[in-house]
Each structure stands twice: as structure tokens, then as C-alpha cells.
């Protein structure tokens, strides 16, 4: 008799019913983790985008190196390295360690989103600002940035969805989010396939919900864009 890892539809249904309270709880952790990491990642990302756009070469080199390193190494390596690294600097819970690691990861991609959005704003906008006597920083803050922010919204929404999926790797540093919960259930019941398919469904649901939200935000912005 083969037990456990053959996919069995009956088991799938009964497990779906039995496990949903655990997954709902874990789903909330996943959502919190995603929101925290994308928000913090946005703050760090904007910082590095500004460095990358800075007239000072040394700043550009620093930002470029940071972005290259983060985008050139796997997320799981970053999570493990930072999880053990952060604890040296500041005592954080597993949740916040993972959130920060994910935030760092997101920040490199978000930095590129903002840099791209900023550079996509027509040079004439800067020239118009400067020709009115506005300083470089004022032009950036009042003229270029507000336009760049709007342009960054669609790719940021996409990054949010990516961040949601990436948060599954926090499972490996003891954050009880969706995937870790699935691992625990799978190891306990041996309904491996069923459990991973169930957790996949939860992720898919979350991705779809957030896709709808992201699209709604985009459409609203597109409307308010005069």
C-alpha cells in the first residue's frame, strides 16, 4: 500500500476543509510580511534610486554595486546571510529579520523601477523648472518626482506580486507563513502533494486578489491623470 504522496482527490478535499484555519492564519502572516517588506523595500529603493541618479560619481558607484550584488545573487542566499547578519546589529524577531531581508531584496528592484521612472521623465521638464529659477533639488522634488512616482506605480504593483511569492522563502528562517505551515502539515500527515497543491491555491488566490487591487489602483491613477 502506498500512503501519503500519491495525489488523492478525496484527501485533497478533506485536507482543504480541515486545514483552512491554519492557512488563514498563515496567510495573514504572509500578507503582513509582504506589505512590510515591500514598504521598507520602497523606502530603501527610493534612497538607492536617488543615489544612482546623483551627480556624485561615488554615490552612483555605491548604488550600482548594491543593486548589482542584490540582483546578482539568489534571494535565498540573501535571506540566510541577512538573517544571521542582522542579529549581530539589532535584535529582531524572525518575522522582522525575514521582512528586512526581503525588503533589501525588493529594494534593489524597486530602486531600478524608480530610476527608470525618473529617467523616463522628459528632460524638458527639468529644463523648464530650472529655467524658472528653481534649484536642481527643487525641480527634482516638485516637478520630476511627482511624475516619476505615477509612472512607477504599475511596475511597483508588479513587484508587490513578486514580493508576495518571494515571501514564501521566509519559511526557511522560521516565519510561520503559508509555505512553512504547508511544510509542517505535509510532514505531519504525509499528504504531501495535496498539501502543497492546497498552499499553491492560497498563493494563487492572494496573487489574484492583489492583482485586482493593483489594477484598480492603476486605473484610478490613470483616471486622475489629466
Amino acid at each position, binding site marked *: 500500500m502506498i500512503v501519503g504522496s500519491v495525489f488523492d482527490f478525496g484527501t485533497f478535499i478533506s485536507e482543504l476543509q480541515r486545514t483552512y484555519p491554519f492557512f488563514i492564519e498563515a496567510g495573514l502572516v504572509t500578507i503582513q510580511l509582504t506589505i512590510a517588506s515591500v514598504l521598507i523595500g520602497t523606502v530603501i529603493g527610493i534612497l538607492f534610486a536617488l543615489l544612482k541618479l546623483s551627480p556624485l560619481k561615488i554615490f552612483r558607484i555605491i548604488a550600482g554595486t548594491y543593486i548589482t550584488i542584490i540582483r546578482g545573487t539568489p534571494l535565498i542566499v540573501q535571506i540566510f546571510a541577512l538573517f544571521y547578519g542582522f542579529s549581530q546589529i539589532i535584535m529582531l524577531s524572525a518575522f522582522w529579520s525575514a521582512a528586512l531581508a526581503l525588503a533589501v531584496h525588493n529594494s534593489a528592484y524597486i530602486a531600478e523601477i524608480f530610476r527608470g521612472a525618473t529617467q523616463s521623465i522628459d528632460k524638458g521638464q527639468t529644463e523648464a523648472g530650472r*529655467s524658472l529659477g528653481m534649484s536642481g533639488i527643487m525641480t527634482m522634488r516638485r516637478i520630476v518626482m511627482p511624475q516619476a512616482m505615477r509612472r512607477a506605480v504599475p511596475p511597483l504593483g508588479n513587484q508587490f506580486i513578486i514580493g508576495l511569492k518571494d515571501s514564501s522563502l521566509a519559511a526557511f528562517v522560521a516565519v510561520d507563513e503559508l509555505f512553512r505551515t504547508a511544510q509542517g502539515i505535509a510532514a505531519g500527515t504525509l499528504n504531501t502533494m495535496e498539501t502543497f497543491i492546497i498552499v499553491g491555491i492560497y498563493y494563487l488566490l492572494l496573487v489574484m486578489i492583489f492583482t485586482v487591487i493593483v489594477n484598480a489602483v492603476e486605473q484610478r491613477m490613470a483616471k486622475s491623470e489629466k
Partner: protein
Amino acid sequence: MKEMIRVEKLNKSFGDLHVLKDIDLTVNESDVLCLVGASGSGKSTLLRCLNFLEIRDNGKIIFDGEEIDPKTHNLNQVRQKVGMVFQHFNLFPHKTVLENVIEAPLMVKKTNKVTAVKEGKELLEKVGLADKFDVYPSKLSGGQKQRVAIARALAMKPDIMLFDEPTSALDPELVGEVLETMKDLAKEGMTMIIVTHEMGFAKEVADYTVYMHDGKIVERGLSKDLFNNPKEERTKEFLSKVL
């Protein structure tokens, strides 16, 4: 007749490309000067050097009697006195027409909001856009956009206005309204330097016209003289093509 701006032996290169060659030019208060010449002759670059959007390599730019050195002068203050109107308007798309006009007075001059709004509305009325205060630029025609851009530049109360082909991005039927606005400005005594391909306008409105070729000023004179009796061979050739 007060001298407003004087340029002496101005040179500017982009890399190996020597774009402006020993330019000498004087513009007095209330003068209207048109810059004409073939594409690539350096007209835009000269204009942009005058408000330091490009920094000259060497030569002098003397503004209101004072030589401006980009190293020691606060260029932001200089630029407040030099209004600029661009070919592609460069309105701020995230701000309404009125917000476009009051942005710099509020932010740069720290004018109080009530005054800025009042003056902004007056300017917009002057350029014939009294009904467009709260509209966003994307809702305007090209001619309307350019008139907003003119009002925006005027809001800083500049001593001189620079226009870089202000009508060449416009549909032919919209050119007139912008030229009309500029004519009004000229009549009010605004000092203006205008790069344009509208020879008719130059002839009619400009006191002086300068013909540039290949980074040099080939000929300068009263507009009626330059258009009717060009002295230089090159100028003749150019005029024969464009008139």
C-alpha cells in the same frame, strides 16, 4: 538705451563639435531680436547658453552690466530674470494651468499664495486663457499650451524672454494665436530673443535679426535691412530658400 545683455567671444563645444564660435551679441532693453539660420547652426545652443541651461566653454555673458560667472554666481537667481519658452512647451502635466503659472513664484520667490494666484490669473487672462485656470495641460491645444508656457515664464517677471522656435511644434492654424501673444509682449516693451522659422513674423515684429550659420553670426542688422538687402552671400542664399 540701456544694454540688457551682451555676449563676447562666446564659445561652446559638445565634445569635438564646436557649436558656437566667437559669438558677439548685444541686446538692448525693449529690443526684439530674431535668430534665424539653418538647422544645426547653433541657434538653440546660443539661447540655452544665455540662461545657462548650457554652460559656455569661454567668453563673457554680461547681464544687466554684470558679467555672470557660473562658478561664483547663483545661476538660479540669474535664471529668474531670464524667461524661456520651449518648442515643446514643457508644461508640468501634473499641475493645472494656474498651478503651472504660480509654481515658480510660490516656490522660488516665496510670493504669498494670494498674490501669486492673483497675478497668475491676470497673466492667463492676458494670454487669453481666462477660462482654463483649473484645466490640466493635456486638455489644451498646442497653441493654448504655448500661451500658458509664456504666462508661466512671465510670472517670474523676467527682464528678458527667450523663445526657442515657439511655434514650430504647432499645427499651422494655431501658430497665429501664439505669434499674436508674442507681438503684444513686444509692444509692451519686453526684451525678447526669438529663434524662429517664421520669417514673416521676424520681418514684422523683430527690431533686429541675426543670421547664424555653422556656429557663427554671419550677419546682424535691422530686420527690414537684413530681409530686404542682405549684405552677405550666405544670408542671401538662406533667405532665397526660406522666403
